[in-house]
Structure formats: structure tokens, C-alpha cells
């Protein structure tokens, strides 16, 4: 934990009460309700007593590496969104219960995770296991800063469910644990695995005899051809999320000049956004607007409308992650001949440092154990069960998504053509998988910060230089904000 974090002390709460008393005395009309004040939001919560209750713990053994109590209940919350919650009730819980029949699982599904659980976190009475996802997800970085999350080191060091010789740590795709860590301590398990790239309408390409472009020059030539055929070459996520275009932007820049150019971006270094490769990539994407290669009106569209028009054959390329196929399932199902596939971003130059096959991929879909959980050991054991090959494969089959469990991705048969192409691209990439972390570390830097700058760039309202200046200003704001806990990475 960083030293700048201040915890509640008795001195602190006395200041607060003195303050309220003073407010009452100095004539603020508190009235007879004043006595109730001490029991409300400002009166402090469970932090005072949580150290007095030791968590229940069983004996550590080969069979019980995390030392979970064998008869204490486990309360879990699953986000009931794109993935639903059947994967938990039908796949993970049977695996867990087979081994621990006496641990009663208290399963809950919620659409608005923050809305249901925020008050319980404040009160120091959170559930044991939370799938912190969806629109209502609580800010993970802030939860870590507030000391609300349980250290998951023991989980990743424990032997894996399938092979006692191999620790959990080594069964995961590299980068998974780092994605959920701060200062080397893991707090978040990112379970689903997302591959990012350009999603294209394979049917249109095949029908017209067009080939998948491998360089930006080929991309521009193809766009000209597509446009003359009366189809829009590109869409992006309109007014809702122009930041989706940051993904090809930074990926193409990293391919051109190497993944190390992303490190200063994450570390908020001055001038990071002004790197020549990033400028070149930004100029390339801006040229899509200059040449009128975007779907007309996309700048004013909601993202689902834009993606829907893409899925209905109005445009060919769309930047997104591997959830796109699920998200647009309805539009995709309208036309049986429609087939989508993912391609890695084309190279800006023949002398690019990284190969064409390089993709951005990252673990996502966060699962956490609250620091104040009553049964955190069992919650980690539940995670260990999720990370078994059987659990991960069951997840992939149920929700059409890859997982962070490397072995499970190799064995799973994926029937969805889009995800299958993403899996292929990931395998082809091999070691050349890149990612950047500033959107996870500093969510408001990505949105609205860089999001607004990129939106203006894609409307060609600003030049590449102005875009760089705006991005630098956004990074500067975060850099100079003392209330934000900073993180850095080496490579």
C-alpha cells in the first residue's frame, strides 16, 4: 500500500463529531434530528471493529492449500450482464461443491453491482466474492487505494486445481496477474481474455474478391475500392466511445516502433504522446476522415447504432474487442450469410519493428475478494476452482469468451466464427502480445480525457499536433493530481 493512504483513526472521527457539534451550535438548523446524525453516512463505518474479528481458517494441507474453513458459508455476487450468471451456477459452483460439500454457497446475481454493494463496502460488511463488472462496477483502482481488497498472493502461489506440481500462477496467460496488481501485490483476478483488433465483414470481402490488407497503404487502396463500390469502409463507436479508435492507434504505433513506446504513456511521462510513431498512427487514422472513408454520420451516432449498421453490411471495418460478436448477436443473426472475422491492425511501414501478427490482448472481467470479507479463504478457493481447466473451458463454452487459463484456451472448441478467428490471431501472435495499462490505472484519463481528444481527431476538427497537445494535457492533469495514486511499469 502506498504511504499516502490515510486510514480512519479515532482522532479523525472525533474531528468529525466536533465539527458536527459546532455546526449545530453555530446555528445550522439541525433540529431534533441532530441526535440521528452520528448514525448516518458521515459517522464512520465498520473499519473500527474489523481487526478484532479474525477470519475463520481451516488447517492448511495438500488437499486444502488455502486453509479454508470446511463448514462456513460463502456469499458470492455475479454480474448478470453480457455473460449472465449460468456459468457460475452451472459450471463453477458444481466443481467447487463437489470438493467442499459442506460449504454452503449463497449465490447472488446483480445487474448494478455498485448500486447493490457500495453501501456494504462502506459499512465494512461486503460479500466474500464479487464479480465487479458492468456499468455499475466500482472503480477497482480506488478500491485498492482504499484498502478494500484482499491480497490474492496466496491464491496465485497455491498449487493449481488440476496439477499440484504447478502453481496457479503458471497456468495463466502472462500478464494476467500484473493486470490486477498494484506495486507487485495482486488484488484482482481478471478471468476473461479479450483480443482486440479490426473486425471485418468477411462476406463482403469474399464476394468482391478483396484481400485483407497487411499494410496501411494496402488498407487505403482497399478503402478507395470499397468506397467506389458504394459501401463505407470504416465505422467506429460514434459519439459514445471514439476511444475505441485509440486501440488501433496505439497498437499500430507499437508495431511500428516497438512495445517500449507504450511504457512512457503508462508512466505519464511528459512527451510520451508526442512520439513519432504515435503521431504517424494518429495521422493515418485521421486520413480516414480526410478521405471520407467513415460511414456517413458516424460522428453523431450511438455506438450500438454504428456497430449495428456495420453488422448489417453498411461498412467493412470496425475496431473492437472480442466481445463484439456477442454484443451484436441480434444484428448478426438477421443475415445468415454474414460472416465476421478479426484481423490484426495493418503495418504502418514495411520496416515496422514488430510483426504483422502482433495483437493487443488482455485479461479482463474482474473478480475480487473484499478485505472485509467474512470468508476470504473460501472465496480464493472458489477462484482456484474457476481457474481449473474444466472450469475455464466450461466458461468459454457457456459465454463464448476466452479465459486467462492458457491450457483451457488450447483445448476448447469455439464454434463462433468471430471468436475462433480471434483465437487463431492470438495463437499466431505467439509472444507478440501487447497491452497498455493507463485506462485501468487512471480510468478518467481514458474517458473522458483521451476519448474527447480522439473524437475531435476523427472528426478532423483538430490536427495531429493539437491531438498530441490535448493528450499531453490530459496526462499532465493526472500526473499533477495528488489525489490519484500513481503507478509505473518497467516494460
Amino acid at each position, binding site marked *: 500500500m502506498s504511504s499516502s493512504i490515510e486510514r480512519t483513526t479515532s482522532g479523525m472521527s472525533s*474531528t468529525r463529531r466536533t465539527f458536527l457539534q459546532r455546526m449545530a451550535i453555530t446555528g445550522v438548523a439541525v433540529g431534533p*434530528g*441532530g441526535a440521528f446524525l452520528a448514525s448516518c453516512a458521515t459517522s464512520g463505518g465498520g473499519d473500527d471493529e474489523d481487526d478484532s474479528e479474525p477470519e475463520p481458517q481451516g488447517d492448511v494441507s495438500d488437499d486444502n492449500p488455502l486453509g479454508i474453513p470446511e463448514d462456513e458459508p460463502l456469499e458470492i455476487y455475479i454480474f448478470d450482464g453480457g455473460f449472465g450468471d449460468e456459468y457460475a451456477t452451472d459450471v463453477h459452483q458444481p466443481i467447487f461443491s463437489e470438493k467442499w460439500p459442506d460449504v454452503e454457497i449463497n449465490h447472488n446475481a446483480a445487474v448494478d453491482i455498485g448500486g447493490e454493494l457500495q453501501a456494504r463496502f462502506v459499512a465494512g460488511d461486503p460479500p466474500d466474492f464479487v464479480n465487479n463488472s458492468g456499468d455499475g462496477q466500482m472503480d477497482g483502482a480506488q478500491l485498492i487505494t482504499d484498502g478494500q481488497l484482499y491480497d490474492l498472493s496466496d491464491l496465485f502461489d497455491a498449487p493449481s486445481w488440476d496439477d499440484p506440481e504447478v502453481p496457479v500462477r503458471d497456468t495463466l496467460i502472462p500478464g494476467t496477474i500484473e493486470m490486477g496488481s498494484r506495486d507487485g501485490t495482486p488484488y484482482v483476478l481478471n478471468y476473461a481474455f479479450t483480443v482486440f483488433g479490426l473486425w471485418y465483414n468477411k462476406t463482403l470481402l469474399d464476394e468482391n474478391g478483396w484481400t485483407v490488407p497487411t499494410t496501411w497503404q494496402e488498407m487505403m487502396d482497399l478503402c478507395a475500392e470499397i468506397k467506389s463500390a458504394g459501401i463505407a469502409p470504416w465505422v467506429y463507436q460514434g459519439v459514445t466511445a471514439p476511444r475505441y479508435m485509440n486501440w488501433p492507434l496505439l497498437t499500430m504505433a507499437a508495431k511500428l516502433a516497438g512495445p517500449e513506446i507504450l511504457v512512457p504513456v503508462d508512466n505519464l511521462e511528459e512527451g510520451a504522446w508526442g512520439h513519432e510513431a504515435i503521431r504517424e498512427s494518429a495521422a493515418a487514422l485521421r486520413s480516414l476522415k480526410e478521405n471520407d472513408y467513415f460511414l456517413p454520420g458516424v460522428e453523431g*451516432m450511438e455506438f450500438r447504432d*454504428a456497430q449495428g*449498421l456495420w453488422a448489417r453490411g453498411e461498412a467493412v471495418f470496425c475496431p473492437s474487442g472480442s466481445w463484439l460478436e456477442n454484443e451484436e448477436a441480434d444484428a448478426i443473426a438477421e443475415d445468415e450469410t454474414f460472416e465476421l472475422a478479426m484481423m490484426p491492425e495493418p503495418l504502418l511501414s514495411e520496416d515496422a519493428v514488430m510483426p504483422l501478427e502482433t495483437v493487443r490482448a488482455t485479461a479482463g472481467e474482474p473478480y475480487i475478494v473484499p478485505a472485509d470479507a467474512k470468508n476470504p479463504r473460501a472465496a480464493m478457493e472458489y477462484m482456484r476452482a474457476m481457474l481449473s481447466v474444466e472450469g475455464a473451458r466450461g466458461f468459454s463454452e457457456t459465454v463464448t469468451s476466452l479465459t486467462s487459463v492458457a491450457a483451457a484456451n488450447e483445448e476448447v472448441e469455439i464454434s463462433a466464427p468471430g471468436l475462433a478467428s480471434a483465437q487463431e490471431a492470438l495463437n499466431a501472435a505467439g509472444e507478440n502480445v501487447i497491452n497498455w495499462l493507463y485506462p485501468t490505472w487512471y480510468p478518467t484519463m481514458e474517458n473522458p480525457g483521451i476519448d474527447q481528444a480522439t473524437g475531435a481527431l476523427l472528426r478532423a476538427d483538430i490536427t495531429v499536433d493539437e491531438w498530441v497537445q490535448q493528450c499531453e494535457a490530459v496526462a499532465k492533469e493526472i500526473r499533477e493530481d495528488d489525489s490519484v495514486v500513481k503507478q509505473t511499469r518497467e516494460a
Partner: protein
Amino acid sequence: MTALRHGKYPFILAFLLPPVGIYALYMLSPYVQAIYISLTRWSGLSATQTFIGFDNYVEMWNDDQLRTALRNNLILLVVVPVLTLFLGLFFASMLNVGGRRSGQAVTGVRGSSVYKVVYFFPQVLPHAITAIVFAYVFAPSNAGGILNNLLEAVGLGRLTQLWIGEPKYLVWIIVVVMTWGFVGFYVVLFSAAMQSIPRDIYEAALLDGSSRITTFRKVTLPLVWDTVQVGWVYMAIQAMDGFAFVHIMLGVNGGVQGAGDVLGVAIYRAAFAEYDFGYAAAIGVLLLLLTMTIVVLFMRVLRRERVELA
């Protein structure tokens, strides 16, 4: 008698304490707590609040985005009530006293009973639905934009715009949508006021050869002025809000470049996107002060200009 007088205060207290207690607990104490929270740094996720004095207010002073939100709220505050009250008065007078039909001196225009229902219709729609509908009114034509398609259909294709994609239009879109949503209520309110105006006044005006506009200016308007003032106060308070329309139509960041932001959305964003409850509470206190200032100002004006009516 003596017994009742003897027990008067306990009796009154017994009835007064519960409601005052509940009011203090659920209305006053949150205000006081919000003021305290605005002086702290608090994520809203833990029980830890760090007292930081007026730092949040200093930050507010330097926040350009907040200035945009404040400017938009002021635009809404001035333009929406004027538009809504003007349209409300116009429609109400046409529905009630604007008609000229043989045999009846004072009546509404033809078909006024149908119009009454039509005008009131937006009022029964939740703001969320109004906002979603209008997001599609202002969408690009290939995404089903009603306005752009309409313009193209009547040969005004060159007037089409990417309404929601253009920062300069955003606040005016909100003005239009809010006015559309609120005007029906004021039509009904003013209709009720106009119904209570004695008919013989209109008949007298008519006999004197007064035109419709003169009748409206010299008879209708002075006699419903009290209701208009009440409407103005309501409207001003509603215009300080605008949260649902902006959040649903333009998103949590207030649309492209944040140009359509309002204070309500800024509070929500600070609290639930940035997890900075202290800052959110500080904006809340600003909004409280603004709203109270406006109400006090209007009450003053209202009291001074009260007209004795027949």
C-alpha cells in the same frame, strides 16, 4: 377546559415531534452531512473520510468543465422558462379563449379538446423515455434520425446536421427537449387559470371590438399573471436539474467535448465515475446555493408584484 389547557403543550408536541423529527432526519441531516462531505476527500467506497478544508471548492473554481456545466444551466434557466411559458400561454389561450365561433362569445379554437390531450401527452411520458425518443429524433439519417429524414423528405436536405455530434448544438437540443417535455403541464395549468376568468369580461372586450391579441394582452395575461409567476418558479427549479435528459441523451460526460454538461450530471460523474464523493458533494452544495438564491429572488419578485384581482 383547564385540563385541556394544562395538557396543551405535551399534546401539541406529541403531534409535532414525529413529523419534525422525520423531516430533520431525512431532509436536514443529509444537507448538513453533504456540506461536511464537501470538505473531505472521500471515495464513497470506504468509511474513511479525510478532512481537506476548502480544497474541493478551490478545485471547483479551476474546473473548466464545471464552468461549461454552469453556463449550460444558466442557459436552461433563462431560455427554457421563457420558451415554455410563452408556448404554454399561447396554447392555453388558443384552447380556451382564442376561438371565434358564431353563437359563442368566448371559446377555444376548433378541435381544442383534441389538442388538450395532445399537448398533455409528453407530460405523462417519463423523462427517460422522452430522452431516448429524442436521441433518435436527432440521430444521423442512416441511424434512423427522424429530424434529418424529415428535412430530406421536404427538400431541405442541406439543413441536415449531425445534431448530437456537434458540440455547439448540444445545449440547444436539451432546451428543445425540455421545453417539449414541460409545455403540456403549463398548458393545463394556464387553462385552469383561464377557465376561472369571468366570461363577461371577455364579452365586454369583444363588444368594444378588441382583437384576439389585444384581448390576450389586456385581459387574459393580467388575470393569469399570478399563475404565470408560480409556473416561472417551478420552471426555474426544473431547469436547474436537466439530469435525466442530459445523462440519457448525451451520456455521463455531457456529450461531445462535454459541451452539453449540466451540474446534475457533473455531480453524478464525480460521484459514480470518478469516485470522488467529496467533490460531488461540493458541486451539490453549489447547486443548493444556486437553487436557493433563485427561489428567494423569485419569491421577492412574486411578493412585490402581487396584483389584487377581482
